[in-house]
Structure formats: C-alpha cells, structure tokens
C-alpha cells in the first residue's frame, strides 16, 4: 500500500555527491504529481541519476508527515548533502529548485 517504494537508485559515480531526497505528496493531487515529475526529470538528467528519492504519500503515512513536520504538500526535503533544506510547492519554480539542489547551468 505504501508509496514509499517509489525509490530510484542509480549506480554511483566516484567523487560525485549522492542526493538523498524525500518528497511528500498528497495522493495524486496535481501539485504533487507535477512535483514528482519535475523531480524525477531533474534527477535523471541534471543530477545524472545520483539520487535516492523516497516518495511519501501523506494520505498513506500521516505519521511520517508528523515526524518530518510536513504541513504543506508537496514538500521536498533535501536530506543529503547537508544542510537539510525544505522546498515547498509543485517545484514549478525550477530555478529555485536547481539553486537548492546546487545544480548549475540550464540543462533540461
């Protein structure tokens, strides 16, 4: 039942920082779906797969929302590399997301 299994692993390349991301979504709400799609695209392309995404559906696992204090969804928590950052919203403002993830350049 839990949607936590939406993880995507990729072979790590030497010398490159792995990203540990936790994305809180609300079922199939449009903002959540958009955030998920954007994040997956950024991971595959801009981050060249160097990320581990855990998707948490608040409707399936409210305790996780409570634990991470996620009131607004979608919320992306960048757990690694430090410092921990919270990004709220559909990630449509990609410049902010890229800056938060430390992605340089304008690769799609």
């Amino acid at each position: 039942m839990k949607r936590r299994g939406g993880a995507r692993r990729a072979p790590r390349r030497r010398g490159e920082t792995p990203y540990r991301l936790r994305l809180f979504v609300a079922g199939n709400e449009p903002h959540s779906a958009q955030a998920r799609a954007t994040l997956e695209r950024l991971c595959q392309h801009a981050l060249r797969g160097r990320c581990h995404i855990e998707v948490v559906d608040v409707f399936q696992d409210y305790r996780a929302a409570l634990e991470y204090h996620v009131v607004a969804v979608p919320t992306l928590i960048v757990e690694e590399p430090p410092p921990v950052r919270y990004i709220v919203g559909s990630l449509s403002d990609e410049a902010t997301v890229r800056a938060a993830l430390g992605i340089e350049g304008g690769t799609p």
Partner: protein
Amino acid sequence: MAPTAEARLPQPITKAPTHIAGLDEILQGGLPRGRTTVVMGQAGTGKTVLGLEFLYRGALDGEPGIFVGFEEPPDDLRVNAATLGWDLSRLEREGRLVLLDGRIKPEALRAGAFSLSGLLAIVTGKSREVRARRVVLNALDVALRFFESPVAARNELHILNDWLRNAGLTSIVTYKPRAPDLDGLDDFFGSMADCVIRLDARVVDQVTTRRLRVIKYRGSDFGGNEYPYVIGESGLRCIPISTVGLKHEPLGEKISTGLSRLDAILDGGYRRASCILVAGQPGAGKTILASTFADAACRRGERVLYVSYEESAAALAGNVASAGLDLKPHVDGGRLVFLAYMPEAMGAEEHLMRVMDAVTRFEPHHVVVDAISACDRMGGMQAAFEFLMRLLNSCKERGITILLINQTKGATDRVELSGAGISSMLDTVLFMDYAVGPRETNRLLHVFKARGSAHSNLKYPYVVTPSGIHILEPALGPGEVPGVPPGRAAPGRQPEAP
C-alpha cells in the same frame, strides 16, 4: 453541494456544549455539533483561549479534541494554558487532547503551488487515533497568508471547509479579519460557517472592555446582543444576562429597614427582592442607612453582600461604628461579606464577574452597592450603566434585594438622583437631603417612590447619633397643595418612638 447535504439531514441541529462560563447560555446550548464555527477577532481578543478552552473542557467532558496552531508552537500553548490552571500535558498523555504545530517551516523555500493536505492527513490520522470529536484550527489566516494568491488561499479554504464538513467534527476556526477585506476572505469565512462569533476588545476611558457577539447561527436561535466577557483566572467568561425583566422574581414581603420609623414611613419596610436606591449628598448618612439595613438583616439570620467602591471594608466598618453599628460579629459569623475594590482597578465586566462570583458563592439575601456613582470610573458611563443593569437583573432574577447608594452633587437634582439611567429598575427611592436654613442645617429624609406600597410623602428630619439614625417627627403645617392634606397616605404620620 451544501444544499443537498442539508436536504439529506433534515433533523434539527444538535449542540456541543462549550462548557465556557456563560457562553452556552448565549448559544442556547453550545456550538453546532459536527459543524464549523468561525471565531473572529483582532489580536488580543482571546480567540486562542476560546478555542483551547472549548477543547480543554470538551476533553474533560469526554470529547477528545485536536488543536492546530498556525501561529504558535504547542509549547507556548501549554505554558499559557498552565497560567489558567489547565494541565494540557496530562490530557495529551491520556490521549484526550492533541496539540499540532500547523506552522509552515519559515525557512522552507517556496517553489510553486501547494496545499495543506499534509496537515489534513495528520489531523485525520490523529483524530482517528484519539477518536476526536472536536477540532480547532487556530489563526487560519496566518496559514492562508503563505499562499501565493488570494485565489489559491480561497481554494484552500474551500478544501478545508469540505474536509471539515465530511469529518463530522465540531470545529472552531479562528482568524483575524483584515480591514479592508481586500481578498474577500472574510466573506468566505463567514459563509463557510454555521455559526459566527465575533470577539472585540476596545479601550474606553483607559479601561479595556471586551465584547462577544454571535453574528450568525444557522438553524438556531441565539442571544443577539453584545455580551461582555473577560479572560479570568480560569478561562473565558461571558456574561449572558440580556433577558431584561423577563425572569424577575415578584417583589416579596416587607422586611425591616432596621429603623422602625422608616419601616412605618414605608408602610412596613422595604420589599424583599426589590431594588432600593438611597440617594444623597456626601455626609448625609447613606452608608449608615444601608449598614443599618444590613445589620438588621444579619440579625434576622440573613446573608448580606456589601460591595464597596468608595472605601475599604475596615474604613467602612469604622465609619458606621461611630453610629453605633457593630458589623464585626456579622462578618465573623459569616452573614456579612464585604467586597471592596477601586472602581478603576478593572473593567466593568471584571467588576461584574467578581460581584456575581460572590453572589453565586455566598447566595446573599441582600446586596448593597456603595456607591453606584463610583461605577462611572469603571470605564465610562455606558460601562457603568451596563454593569448596573446586569447586576440588577441578576439580583432580581435570584430574588435578591439590592440596595444602591448614589452620591449626588446637587441637592435635588432629580435627573442625577436615580443614577446612570436605571430609574425604571428602581422599586423604592429614598433621598437624604439637607435643608439649609438661616440658623441651622437640617437633614431630611424623603421617600420619592415606593412601588407596591403606600408611603408617606412627607420630608422627615433625621439625625445621625452615636446610636444610629433617628428619624424625627415631620413638621406638619398646612398642606403645600391646596385641598391635599399633608402627609398623604402617610403611615408614618402617627407619632412613634424612634
């Protein structure tokens, strides 16, 4: 949407008592069960206290609740509640109360549109865990301010509203209206709720007065006035008195004034459960007359509450001791209770609370207020008027005799005589006057009004001696109105030993 839901539920609404002092009377039972109530008010009006108390008292009464604070962390709530004597932590441990931090992390970056579904998921989960029946969303306007546009905020409010309706919880949403209502949110808050309560705090003559008003209550009658309320030592307290004159106890039997001569003038004395006004200039002996009555009542074994706004209990007792009245045995014997406050020490509501508290606890047969002329200092004429009206009503509803002292400035200023526009409530009016002659100044006692009693229309000279007030023979000359003999209906005409 809403109409169909209502069509499916034709049964009358049921109510969830708030157990907040006085509020359930105003709401005629409580808040609409399973529905949303909006509580609006500016900062410092007590919205949070109201919401929290609704949950606290509900939890004690077997209805678990969830409090979502969009403004302050749960720790602040626990600390603030402790000052009101509420142990929230205990209720939390027992699974009867859940405090949730609804604040969006301030350090969070914003990158697009969002919803509060995370919060709703948490509240849903938690309410299942504790089987919640009540929920409070406190300072929802703060959460809505995070939305990128008024449209987004309104959409979210729609979602919340639907969620609340479906959840079947009795809910309170509090928010601070913004003037002007640029984004139309106030209107929407008003329309989403089945019940709307407005809290208001204003400062009049340097004294804060708080007012509560129910603006709307779908499917229910409610008290529509503005009701004073205070945030007291143990929470919010409203004064629901508004049913002016509807439940008054009838005037009772005659009871002694403590002066046999005055009893005769009044054809037997004051009437129990009546309202008596004693007006006069400073030094006329009003306090002594009132204390004489209190003394006589206590001697009969009745209880008297003496409210003093002019002097301390000790000063008052010393003052009347000079007229031979020893009140101490009554105080020691628990028949006489003094309540002495500076009028400006607090607002009129708080004064009323304190008097009513004493009335409830002590259940006096009689109340003396010395003096109503000081009540203006509780925050203006209007506040004084409301204070007196409410106090008079409460006493009349309980069948308590109330004796008011009014200090007048002018000798025969009739307008001022009855004080603060309460004349219609008065059953008996006594005036203690000075008659300044060329060689002497005499004191005169005059009954202006004695509802339901024959009474003398004469002016009676009196003296204040170390053994109390002595009323003397009236000077009976020819009548002042041709054809009307002096001392019309004057039971006190017959000479009688003082």
